[in-house]
């Protein structure tokens, strides 16, 4: 599955982001059985063989222990606090707020458990990088006092076939008492990798009703127009729609570059904005991004290695394209709903 590393000279960059406002991820089941929606924002880019992954986890309050699991394409070499405005700036670039009419008022560890490769605490958020298959990740979650939602086995197996690296993010109750609901903690992962698929299917994890809408904003920043699979729908349509597809403005790149830890951004890139608005039951695909350097997009990346049981998803033709020098990858946020185990006591850390 792994491919040869992209040459540094090809300096290709791709950024993917899931912006906060539209990103309501997997349901988190609290001890009382109520379901909260965890919102997060993510940005990932690839440059000189390293993926820069910036995401934000928002505090949901309630004092309960909860978290999320994110599949990653590789093992991060560093995990630090992310920049302060990168995610917001990217959102503003593609989704500017409507003009305010004149006169309007303002304001408003045990056996078989996954191996912990890395763990760090960032402002009350405990980040753990895990290596292991689906069973090992499930065992790890259980050992940590969490359980996964019943749809997790199938989804974890799906991702474990590609990469056995996952990121778990959990707020530490005792260190989150000063936070307000909605407070976001940005983190930045640097992941040496050349694996370009973007996990989308995991966004539906934890949705009990397959008719539940899954919405997300996906940003790709590359050196040329990417080729995508599945091919996006025209702007404004349901599903995965192509809302923006053009050279990134110099102002945007300059603003992003001025944020903490974002100096790696090249001088010129192509910005693609995809909006995901789809029923959870139909979100059975990921996003494969094709480039001149690596070829593709690839059906296996978009739809997984499906067993030949007649249930394979249709494979629409790739969308427009282009000339990317390299490829990038963005693993993102998947999200596994971690819930505290019923009948068990919470374990504070």
């Amino acid at each position: 599955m792994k491919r040869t590393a992209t040459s540094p000279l090809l300096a290709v960059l791709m950024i993917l982001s899931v912006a906060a406002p539209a990103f309501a991820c997997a349901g988190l089941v609290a001890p009382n059985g109520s379901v909260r929606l965890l919102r997060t924002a993510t940005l990932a880019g690839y440059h000189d063989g390293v993926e820069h992954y910036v995401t934000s986890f928002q505090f949901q309050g309630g004092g309960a222990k909860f978290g999320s699991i994110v599949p990653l394409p590789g093992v991060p070499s560093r995990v630090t606090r992310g920049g302060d405005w990168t995610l917001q700036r990217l959102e503003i670039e593609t989704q500017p707020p409507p003009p305010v009419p004149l006169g309007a008022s303002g304001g408003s560890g045990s056996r078989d458990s996954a191996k912990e490769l890395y763990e760090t605490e960032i402002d009350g958020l405990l980040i753990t990088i895990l290596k292991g298959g689906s069973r090992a990740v499930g065992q790890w979650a259980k050992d940590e006092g969490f359980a996964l939602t019943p749809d997790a086995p199938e989804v974890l197996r799906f991702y474990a076939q590609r990469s056995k690296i996952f990121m778990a993010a959990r707020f530490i109750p005792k260190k989150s008492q000063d936070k307000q609901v909605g407070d976001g903690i940005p983190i930045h992962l640097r992941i040496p990798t050349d694996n370009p698929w973007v996990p989308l299917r995991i966004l539906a994890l934890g949705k009990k009703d397959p008719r539940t809408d899954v919405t997300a904003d996906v940003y790709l920043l590359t050196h040329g127009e990417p080729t995508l699979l599945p091919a996006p729908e025209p702007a404004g349509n349901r599903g995965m729609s192509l809302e923006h597809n053009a050279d990134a403005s110099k102002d945007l790149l300059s603003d992003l570059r001025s944020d903490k830890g974002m100096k790696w951004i090249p001088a010129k890139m192509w910005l693609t904005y995809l909006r995901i608005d789809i029923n959870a039951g139909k979100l059975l695909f990921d996003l494969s991004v094709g480039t001149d350097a690596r070829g593709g997009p690839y059906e296996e990346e978009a739809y997984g290695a499906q067993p030949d049981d007649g249930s394979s998803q249709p494979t629409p033709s790739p969308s427009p394209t282009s000339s990317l020098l390299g490829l990038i990858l963005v693993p993102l946020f998947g999200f596994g709903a971690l819930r505290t185990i019923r009948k068990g006591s919470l374990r504070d850390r």
Partner: protein
Amino acid sequence: MNHRIAVAALIAALLSSSACGSGDGTEPGTTQEVHVQLHNSRFVPDHFEFAVGTTVKFVVENTDPIDHEFLIGDEAAQQAHEDGTEAHHGAKPGELSIPIGETRTTTYTFDEPGTLLIGCHLPTHYDYGMRGTIKITG
């Protein structure tokens, strides 16, 4: 790997089906062994038929990365489990808690004709569809 598991589940289902009693020659008073897999939060197979008086040893294998339960009972019993707070099952016939990747057994005698249910009542599992039926014929 998924394909392998699917094939294994199918084989288990076929074996289980062939082992099911129900008017297919099973002698009342005998004990038969039935294998059940818990895979992708489903019982495989999810339907059984036995003759009244049959004693069944259920060998339940959890292939999932999450814990599950295997609880036999009528509608009222299933509701009681759904509302209940028992952390673990295993002491009573027809009730099991099966940790990740483990196999447990329980033996149950079907004394009366009718229909019973099998369910997993860990949070949201039953609603997700983790249920099965057992038809007991006279």
